[in-house]
């Protein structure tokens, strides 16, 4: 691990550009039932390290400078901060109980954490470790996103079936959008005009206009040979070029490829069992999916829309991030 990093920093930039996307880029995967992170070298596509962390790690996210990794250790009731140079936990944040997912504000300081058991969103300053606010939301808050412009923090509550809109300047909940049963994940598009929200049990993805907070389109999915009740959207990823949305469809073991402009489903890709969350590599040529039941990561070639590889990780992989 350390060796390639050293080389990378020592090499001239021109040389680096040759293979910038694949050279020593690393994916971190949280293994919910192993209390570990798997580290995958994306050059060789192999697991190079397994790091012990707090109990039941789920949501993970990188600091903007990629030097730190925040880890929701749900059953330890804390958010851990890992130094990515040393892979050691350097600090813990007061997260509130049972943190599941979180989102980092573009200011790189304010972390918005969904506390699943307490129906709260906790906002923590990652530098001072102060709790800036706790905001009451619906039952079982789960999905969390902050818009790229930093204006909105959005949370979904699984049993209340709502998207909650939090104004980040006042930490106040200012609006709610009712969506289908068990909303799991939210994702803003690049210009923050639209919010995509998946509903696991409803089997739909709602595309919400941020300006009006109204649903403008509801996507449904149909996979030949799979019972409709098993098509359960969870993770959502949008390409920066606005071309595709990838929707992880849980126990149907498929990822839907959606044209992000026409909202037509173009394809369904067969991945591992119970696919939850996803992440792109830096140039978005590859997509990685966490497959909880099969305990592996599927690698999707984004240009060809083909699954090219699966990589065994720990038990119940949940979240994935990529450090270029």
């Amino acid at each position, binding site marked *: 691990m350390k060796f390639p990093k050293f080389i990378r920093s020592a090499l001239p930039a021109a040389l680096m550009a040759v293979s910038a996307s694949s050279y020593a880029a690393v994916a971190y995967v949280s293994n919910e039932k192993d209390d570990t992170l798997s580290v995958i070298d994306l050059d060789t596509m192999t697991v190079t390290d397994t790091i012990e962390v707090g109990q039941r790690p789920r949501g993970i996210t990188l600091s903007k400078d990629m030097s730190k990794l925040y880890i929701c250790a749900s059953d330890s009731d804390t958010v851990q901060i890992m130094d990515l140079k040393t892979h050691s936990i350097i600090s813990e944040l007061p997260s509130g109980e049972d943190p599941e997912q979180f989102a980092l504000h573009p200011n790189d300081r304010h972390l918005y954490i969904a506390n*699943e058991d307490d129906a709260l969103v906790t906002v923590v300053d990652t530098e001072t470790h102060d709790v800036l606010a706790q905001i009451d939301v*619906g039952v079982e808050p789960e999905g969390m996103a902050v818009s790229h412009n930093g204006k909105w923090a959005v949370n979904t509550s699984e049993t*209340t079936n709502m998207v*909650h809109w939090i104004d980040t300047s006042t930490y106040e909940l200012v609006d709610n959008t009712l969506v289908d049963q068990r909303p799991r994940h939210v994702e803003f598009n690049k210009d923050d005009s639209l919010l995509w929200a998946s509903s696991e049990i409803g089997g739909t993805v709602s595309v919400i206009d941020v300006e009006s907070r109204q649903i403008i389109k509801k996507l449904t999915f149909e996979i030949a040979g799979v019972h409709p009740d098993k098509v359960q959207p969870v993770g959502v990823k949008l390409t920066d070029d606005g071309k595709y949305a990838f929707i992880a469809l849980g126990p149907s073991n498929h990822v839907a490829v959606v044209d992000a402009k026409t909202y037509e489903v173009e394809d369904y890709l067969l991945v591992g069992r119970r696919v939850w969350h996803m992440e792109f590599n830096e140039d978005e040529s590859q997509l990685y999916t966490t497959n909880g039941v099969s305990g592996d990561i599927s690698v999707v070639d984004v240009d060809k829309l083909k699954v090219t590889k699966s990589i065994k990780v720990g038990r119940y992989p949940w979240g994935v991030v990529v450090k270029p």
Partner: protein
Amino acid sequence: MLNCLKKPLLTACATLLLASTIPSNNALAAKQPLTIDIAYLHYQPERPPALSNVLPEPEDAGLAGAKLGIKDSNTTGRFLKQKYQMSHTLSDDPAQMLEDAKARYANGQRLFIANMPSAELQALSKALGPDALIFNAGSQADELRSEICLNNVLHTTPSRAMLTDALGQWLNAKRLKEWLLISGSQPEDKAYAAALKRTAKRFGAEIVDEKQWSFDTDLRRTAQKEVPLFTQTDEYDVVVVADERGDFGEYLLYNTWYPRPVAGTQGLMPVTWHRVVEQWGAAQLQRRFEKKHKRWMTGKDYAAWAGVRSIAESVTQTKSNDAATLRQYILSDKFQLAAFKGRKLNYRDWSGQLRQPIPLIHPRALVSQSPQQGFLHPVTDLDTLGFDKPESRCRMQ
């Protein structure tokens, strides 16, 4: 701002902020809150002593689930200006229970969660007008889903037939096709045995012998001697047992003449709900329940919870607290309930039965969940469990 945070202090912090967040629900703030009144009625006949020292069912089984349902719904209701409230009556006197329900009805109460046996539920349904909406969280009687159709009752607890079909499918998938049926002498044991026989016929199992347990001795010290002789019949693949109260069934395991599994009311059990169910977010529901009530969530708790949540879901969608409006919505194909069983649930529009997967468990683990793969149905595979439309005389109006 809030440096008070350490794990146990969350609630205190939450309360501080509650005041500031609630009034800011801009668009909704102007509206009057919609109040939804639910009455929980529990008639519990005196429990005879079980002959085995089984773990007793908690006194508030059902009620605790309904309370959690109210709490969950109010968290949602906060954002939609809905207020859910519940009152309850627990009684061991059926006549008094009925009077109480009638008085409530006369006062305008229309939404009820009922936890009582079939006969008392029928009396309740009759005593309350056709515009009442009663959720049956207590009786698993098959006749209420097939012959005796109560137009103002919806069933959130599965019928015995749903449970035994769930087991029958699994036995079929395991090729355990020859059954020894042992049943107790109580009426509910006979009903369970009848459901098992119906299941055997449906899924092509053969009952090689049928025995009624009539011993009245306490088996705790003698099971190893008595049970092998009692189970010495033609060879079977599995012993299916109908002993709802738990008089003897626990002692069949490991004591049968042939070393065979035991399933039914003991051994491998088809259940509404159990602590071992933790998939599909169920861990969160279990944790919320345990935090509030300091015990495990039972099947009756789940059924009562599902009743309250069905009401709340239809209130949210129809923006009404009128029982007739809610009933119509619940029985429509638009209704869907996320209830931690891995898929959305809805009601059979002929019998008012909540369709639901059935977990098959042993006390420390989930073994399987039915419907089993490969049991097909033109509408939904959930209707391979229990009385399907052509098998039921019920047609809800």
